[in-house]
């Protein structure tokens, strides 16, 4: 989803990070379960999101308001990181 948005907007860069290969990044971003998404180093959520939810969170991260539930809420299925 993040990649699809990056392909659509020149404003977006989307990284997929394999946490077991980069434990220092996992630690820096306090990844305790995956998938975990961090937007602009400040806004984050754990678990899957629909296209609409993801989009609203991206827009909110830059101050464009949308209507949605608490973005910190864990949604979907997550896997704890060992």
């Amino acid at each position, binding site marked *: 989803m993040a990649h*699809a948005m990056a392909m659509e907007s020149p404003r*977006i860069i989307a990284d997929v990070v*394999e946490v077991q290969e980069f434990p220092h990044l996992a630690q820096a*971003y306090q*990844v305790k379960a*995956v*998938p975990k998404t961090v937007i602009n180093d400040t806004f984050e959520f754990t678990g899957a999101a629909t296209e609409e939810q993801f*989009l609203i969170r991206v827009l909110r991260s830059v101050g464009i308001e949308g209507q949605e539930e608490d973005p910190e809420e864990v949604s979907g299925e997550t896997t704890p990181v060992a």
Partner: protein
Amino acid sequence: MPILQAKDQEAVAERFNVELKRDVSLELYTQRSIGGLYIPGRECRTCVTTQQMMEELAALSPRLRLEVKDYYGDPDEARDKGVEAIPATLIGSGDRYNARFYGLPSGYEFAVLLDSIVAASQSRPSLALESRRLLKQLTQDVHIRVFVTPT
């Protein structure tokens, strides 16, 4: 020994043949192999495998271009592109490399890699019309990091 099995190569080549409408570039930031030796602090467990996977993929379509970059040999270029660690695979078309993988895209992430390559060729929009309209409102840069584990 190839990473992609013959039947997988066939399926991926067929998909690329049908769905890649424009050239897509892959830039792989890795390190130059020095006979299996690593400089302490620069160990890279998956660099060799990732490079082999990307070379196998690139061979499956004339629309795919792979450039292999030496992360330590050309640190300025890596910094300009914002590459933070290796192996890093940047997917793009033209001058835009907005979708990136850090690490070996295996398991489910391999499917994401294929989807991202197809999306980069812009054969069809992968987002809904409303999403594309909303994304046009962005006036600031957004950096999304999605942390995953191999599945």
